[in-house]
């Protein structure tokens, strides 16, 4: 029977393969360019790079030269962790609630929760600053994190809602009819199903916060220097190669983190077996 579809199936493989290759090229191309440039021995960003050296990595790591970059990176990571962490909890919970509200009201609430993603962040940043000063509050790291939280929460909501849609009511019903408590059902059924969505959302939220310029511009202060704003200045006025090296560090550390996590999970599996 399968032979009937042989030509169509071959076409399918060709189309999917070709599109997949294009997608991979688009995803990876710029990363390769930046990585290549980060190893240049030249004094400025240029492609193709001339010569190979680790000098820009050394310059990036050196506290004397780049101490303020480290500080800004730490601030950005702190804010992103807080914003993404809280967003994961509250948006995850809200997604559970939204699942049971399929009517127009539920849809309206859902759409409203998505709107921070759509409102231009520049306007949001300005409006938030006006509001804070109106109530005589000076922007601090707390308010900066809160501002980020609002604009990254929709990512978690969306990805979790997508995972939740696979959770059939019959599954919950059968769990309940078997006498499982709601907490037990949540832990053993709901959570495993939404975990990939939660994780994907948390990751998107974290990275969106790390890369946010407009909200930080208005809610940060001299004491809460943020990484993307600093990188922006470095590349605009002097094409500083440390910006590329910073990306290299991120890519390498993420790779290591993923490898380590994979190890850990595999290990725990072997132990439990």
């Amino acid at each position, binding site marked *: 029977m399968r032979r009937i579809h042989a030509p169509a199936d071959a076409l399918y493989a060709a189309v999917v393969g070709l599109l997949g290759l*294009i997608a991979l090229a688009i995803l990876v191309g710029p990363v390769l360019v930046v990585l290549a440039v980060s190893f240049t021995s030249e004094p400025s960003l240029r492609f193709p790079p001339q010569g190979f050296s680790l000098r820009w990595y050394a310059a990036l790591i050196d506290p004397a030269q780049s101490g303020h970059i480290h500080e800004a990176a730490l601030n950005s990571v702190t804010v992103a962790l807080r914003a993404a962490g809280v967003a994961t909890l509250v948006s995850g919970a809200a997604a559970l609630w939204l699942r049971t509200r399929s009517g127009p009201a539920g849809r309206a609430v859902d759409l409203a929760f998505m709107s921070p993603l759509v409102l231009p962040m520049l306007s949001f940043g300005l409006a938030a600053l006006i509001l804070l000063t109106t109530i005589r509050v000076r922007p601090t790291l707390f308010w900066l994190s809160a501002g980020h939280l609002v604009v990254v929460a929709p990512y978690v909501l969306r*990805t979790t809602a997508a995972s939740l849609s696979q959770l059939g009511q019959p599954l919950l019903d059968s769990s309940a009819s078997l006498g499982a408590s709601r907490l037990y059902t949540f832990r053993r059924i709901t959570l495993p199903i939404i975990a990939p969505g939660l994780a994907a959302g948390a990751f998107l939220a974290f990275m969106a916060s790390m890369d946010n310029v407009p909200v930080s511009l208005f809610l940060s202060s001299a004491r809460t220097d943020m990484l993307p704003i600093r990188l922006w200045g470095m590349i605009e006025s002097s094409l500083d190669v440390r910006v590329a090296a910073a990306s290299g560090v991120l*890519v390498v550390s993420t790779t290591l983190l993923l490898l380590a996590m994979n190890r850990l999970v595999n290990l725990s599996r072997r132990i439990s077996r």
Partner: protein
Amino acid sequence: MTAAASDLRAGAVARLRLSPPEWPLVAPLGLIFVGFFLAPLALLVWTSMHADAEMTRLGPESWMRFLGDPFYLKVAADTLLLGLKTVALTLVLGVAIGLIFLEASPAQRTALLFIIILPLLLSVVVRTFAWIVILGSEGVVSNAALALGLTSAPFSLLQTELGLIISLAQIELPLMLLPLLSVMGRIDPNLLDASRALGASRWRTLWRVILPLSAPGLTAGCLLVFASSTAAFISQSVIGGGRLIYMPLVIWQQSIVVYNWPFAAVVSLCLLISVLGVIGVIHWLGRRVRA
């Protein structure tokens, strides 16, 4: 009426089934939303109702200026179109990656996921530089096309809508793929085998089994991509250049360069409303596909 009734019933059944109240689940996000988002939004609406840049008097002039000007209406339409085109490209490419992901081994899946999140690791600042390298004349794309004989002269995709959409696709693909794969990863492989065993071609399996089952992930991805690409000020202005004008650029110019906050607020609200409108339609389409 019937829809409303079934909603009511569903709500009643849900309330019966789940003994403790459910509203505490949504309360935290709701409170954060009201405090940190609705309040600034209200301020924005109030700002938009002023007639002049100094905000000395109320009046509809700022709204009239935007809505009554074909140039700004075209800018609004271009912005939404840019979002839709980006969604279309990321949708096609995203589904292709998803299909490869479905048939990949666990190790390959991990590698694929790593590649998918790579773009998020590049700061928008340096990503922009990379696209100048790739899309420019004598750039990677132009040289490749020359080598393959696809073109006879070097060309630049910088400052073109196509170049902008390609560069947006890079950063938007993860937004499409993460929700999509978190759903696709849970499709039962036996379903696909069954479909094949019943004599369905791979195309038919795609249309009848895989896509319907992935619809929630696809909808979520499309929403995120659309919202994020219409608001991507830095990519739009740096890769798109000065000749492609979208709403975020106008908002930046009006609020930051010439301090006309009422007009900036009007453009912001128009962007918000129109994008939410399109999102509503995508949502509705997603539900139709699933139904």
